[in-house]
């Protein structure tokens, strides 16, 4: 298993990268951490004729607070997100999901931007970005635009990033106070692709009623899947078992659309979604009541 030949470019700036992309167009692939692209190239499922390596574009590797939000460069390594105190302080949901993103060896190389641009429906990071309401900065040689996470993932391995564009930055907005979180998944072995996973965020008002909730699933359709109706059901309610059961039943029974794979039938995936949703909501409600994201 060896990759097919390609022309290799290793730019050192965003500007140089965008010119290279413009000149090679759809022939080119951007190489970020390579933890999904290189296996696909080894299998020759993907055979780009031009490979543009982003690993020496230092200006794409950052993570910093900027007023209310946090800005993360597309080439920030997953391992950095996992260990960064700013993330654990402001986005504990992301922190909780990180150990599930493959293995330490993979996270040492893998990048946030790479995972999002790859848009694997089984990946954790697209789900977390949707739950947190991230925005993506997409650049081309002559333009720059911002895309909401909800408009970014268009389907299986498909995003809003065009052939001459690149994902440059991820902006995470501040989270409301009294917000509880939970990320849970079931995988055959730690670090494997999960059979099902859910990210839950619950924000309470001063009367402990749910002001707003988000439920996003992985491996539950052709991209990260938001269960809007189940979240709507929680709004204005206080925590009780019946409420949680109804939301879980609605999300797992009607809103998600799992395809099944060799490890799990769609019915089993729905069962997992039901159980995980109940557990995740219970934890998120509890945390929203006792802790708050700073």
């Amino acid at each position, binding site marked *: 298993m060896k990759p097919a030949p390609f022309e290799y470019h290793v730019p050192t700036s965003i500007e140089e990268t965008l010119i290279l992309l413009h000149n090679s167009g759809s022939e080119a692939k951007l190489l970020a951490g390579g933890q999904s692209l290189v296996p696909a190239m080894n299998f020759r499922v993907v055979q780009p004729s031009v490979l543009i390596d982003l690993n020496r574009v230092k200006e794409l590797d950052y993570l910093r607070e900027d007023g209310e939000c946090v800005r993360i460069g597309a080439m920030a390594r997953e391992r950095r997100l996992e260990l960064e105190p700013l993330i654990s302080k402001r986005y504990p949901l992301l922190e909780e999901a990180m150990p599930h993103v493959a293995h330490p060896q993979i996270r040492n*190389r893998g990048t946030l931007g790479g995972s999002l641009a790859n848009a694997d429906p089984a990946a954790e990071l697209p789900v977390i970005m949707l739950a947190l309401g991230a925005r993506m900065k997409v650049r081309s040689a002559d333009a720059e635009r911002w895309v909401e996470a909800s408009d970014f993932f268009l389907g299986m391995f498909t995003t809003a990033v065009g052939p001459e564009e690149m994902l440059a930055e991820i902006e995470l907005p501040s989270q409301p106070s009294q917000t509880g979180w939970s990320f849970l998944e079931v995988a055959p072995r730690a670090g494997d692709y999960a059979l099902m996973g859910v990210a839950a965020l619950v924000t309470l008002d001063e009367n402990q009623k749910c002001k707003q909730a988000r439920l996003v699933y992985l491996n539950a359709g052709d991209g990260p899947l938001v269960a809007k109706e189940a979240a709507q059901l929680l709004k204005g309610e206080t925590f009780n078992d019946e409420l949680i059961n109804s939301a879980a039943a609605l999300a797992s029974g009607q809103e998600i659309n799992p395809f099944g794979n060799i490890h799990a039938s769609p019915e089993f995936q729905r069962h997992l979604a039901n159980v995980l949703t109940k557990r995740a909501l219970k934890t998120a409600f509890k945390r929203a009541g006792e802790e708050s994201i700073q």
Partner: protein
Amino acid sequence: MTQMLPVRITVNEKVYQREVEPRVLLSDFLRHELGLTGTHVGCEHGVCGACTILFDGESARSCLMFAVQADGHEITTVEGLAKDKDHLHPLQQAFWEAHGLQCGYCTPGILMTLIPFLKQNPNPTEEEIRHALSGNLCRCTGYQHIVDAVKLAAEKMK
């Protein structure tokens, strides 16, 4: 014409200069170009962990990188662990003593995974050890003796 690129890579503290085709994987470069066959190649798609090396001190899959990407960087392979042939690294010695291997194919990758792990976590619990090893497949041992070896290594390396 095939594109050939010059690289200067430090492997086990020794500097190597070569010309490589960009599609050459780092794992193949180490084995075929440098003759360092201690780095094993199992699945070639990042699942088995046999090809794990240290890239600037952090564990990484050498089958998921191109050799050109290692230009100017420091690589450590399993050959870089022992001081000489009579003095194994304490981690290797612990694997020897606790029977942490059978066929040995996965062992180099496991050792290279554990070097940074034990540095960051010198007193790991069994659960942490098992989690650290989750990216390395062993088809012989059932992992029990590997876990024992890691515990012994942690003791030795204190």
